[in-house]
């Protein structure tokens, strides 16, 4: 069997297309590369969607935490503390065992029938956990940036007669985003790394449709040789990290485009965020 055939069979195996059975004997390098790459689709799915939704929630949370109203501030502070103070692994287990307890037949709410079974599958349940988790981490980053917006910028805005919402939208928010962006890049990278936990934490891999690490673990268990599949995962993730840095670097340049070149903030990868 040539490598092209293998790719044809297994390239979308993680989504349920192609060959049903996973390889059992005579594992080739091509099979391992293809299947693990196929699993990477899930990592991209979880990371990209959680990041997208999390961005909006984290902005709202950061604003709530910076607000003077305790009814807004306290819930935001608690939300951030709970999700940043506890391991993501436990959060996954907790969410899964909570979602399993929902009634199987669905809930009837004011005559509306809400199905619940889909929540226990990884694509929805794990995505919700990752979304809330990244929102909490990013909210802390954005809050920190919101607090370090230069006072002079705000005074200048007032002097020009820009007040209230328009001041926030035109001065505070763009500056916050610019200041937070390098840290937010790191958060994005480690969110993608955290997606590898999903299928090790209670959420079942339906019909062996798993992520990159799930397949790597499958190969390592079957061949009893960790020296091939794990370096392949590592290779894919290094590629992913570099493309993320490139993508976020592009946005960073755009956010910094009005500044003289010596005061621009550069993105530095700080490996200090696992959950």
């Amino acid at each position, binding site marked *: 069997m040539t490598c092209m055939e293998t790719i044809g069979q297994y390239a979308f195996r993680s989504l349920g297309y192609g060959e049903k059975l996973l390889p059992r*004997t005579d594992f080739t390098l091509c099979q391992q590369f293809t299947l693990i790459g196929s699993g990477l689709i899930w990592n991209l799915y979880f990371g990209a969607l959680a990041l997208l939704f999390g961005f909006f929630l984290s902005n709202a949370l950061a604003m709530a935490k910076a607000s003077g109203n305790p009814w807004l501030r306290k819930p935001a502070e608690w939300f951030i*503390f*709970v999700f940043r*103070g*506890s*391991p*993501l*692994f*436990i*959060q996954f*287990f*907790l969410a899964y*065992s*909570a979602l*399993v*307890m929902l009634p199987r037949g669905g809930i009837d709410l004011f005559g509306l029938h809400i199905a619940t079974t889909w929540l226990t599958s990884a694509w929805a349940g794990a995505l919700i956990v990752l979304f809330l988790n990244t929102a909490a981490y990013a909210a802390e980053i954005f809050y920190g940036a919101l607090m370090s917006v230069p006072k002079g910028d705000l005074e200048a805005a007032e002097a020009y007669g820009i007040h209230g919402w328009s001041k926030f939208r035109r001065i505070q928010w763009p500056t916050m985003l610019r200041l937070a962006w390098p840290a937010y890049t790191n958060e994005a990278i480690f969110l993608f*790394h*955290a997606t*590898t*936990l999903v299928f*090790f934490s209670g959420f079942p891999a339906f019909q062996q449709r798993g992520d990159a*690490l799930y397949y*790597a*673990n499958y190969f*390592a268990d*079957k*061949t*009893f*040789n*960790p*020296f091939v599949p*794990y370096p392949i*995962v*590592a290779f894919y*993730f*290094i590629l992913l*990290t*570099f493309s993320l840095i490139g993508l976020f670097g592009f946005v960073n340049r755009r956010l910094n485009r009005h500044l003289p070149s010596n005061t621009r903030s550069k993105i530095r*990868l*700080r*490996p*200090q*965020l*696992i*959950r």
Partner: protein
Amino acid sequence: MFSSCADPKTLEGLSWLLCYLTSGKHIDFYWSFLTVLTLLVVTAPAAMAFGFAGAMAARSQFLPLRLLGKVYTAMVRGVPDIVFFLFFVIALDQGIEWMKHQVVCPDWSEPIRQGLEFRVCPEAKVPSGSSAQIWHQIYGFTLAVFTFAIVFGAFAANVLYGAMGAVPRAQLETAEAYGMSHRQVFRRILVPQMWTYALPGLSNLWMILIKATPLLFLLGVKDIVYWARELGSAKTQAYAFPHPDWRLWYFLGLLVVYLCMTRVSELILARLTARLSHGQATAGGEAMRRAAQ
């Protein structure tokens, strides 16, 4: 544990709960918290040692050593840490058995990797097949600790390397002007002075280490996550204490324990930061000096 617990089927209410929470398996569950604390206590200094060695290697004048240090510090940047956890546990196990195999059975002719199997001679098994269950557990835990130390050592090496670079150059030059050798400058000035710069990174690392402890479960150690799953799952009438699926409550308990651990660490680290900033040429030290005037 209590004599009244001899027949749990007859109990009700609070006394049932008391007996339930002191059953033999629950005692094992409580001991597994000690496993987690042991992991933290052993791993933290080991990871610091690895990190210190890594940072020193990365600063070395000798090129191969410097490259080794750089690769070690860079390895955790692009790759998820769980990959390393899963990889090192098997790789270390196989490496140890392979080395023992070379020593114990030098005239073994069959290849070690036969197709899908990793087969060393029976005498080279670690721990040997006849040893008690406890030794298997201790061996597994030791491998896990070593794996944690390697991965967190790489993180610590990053932090310490950065901190060594952040010590003001003038302080080192002053030491050189006093006639200290390279070694003396390193030992007397650089290392004592770097802690204030390393502390933010190291405290972050400690938080991460606390939050990484549930991963012990993935490495096959019977830790708190294992017991929470085991005890929480639904128990039929065949068991002494039948109950429905209570995993949610067990995991909620673990969540609270972790929140307490991170909160207490935060408070302690804040005090330590204040202590170390004292009299330093940093923004934190300057703020303290102003406040004291």
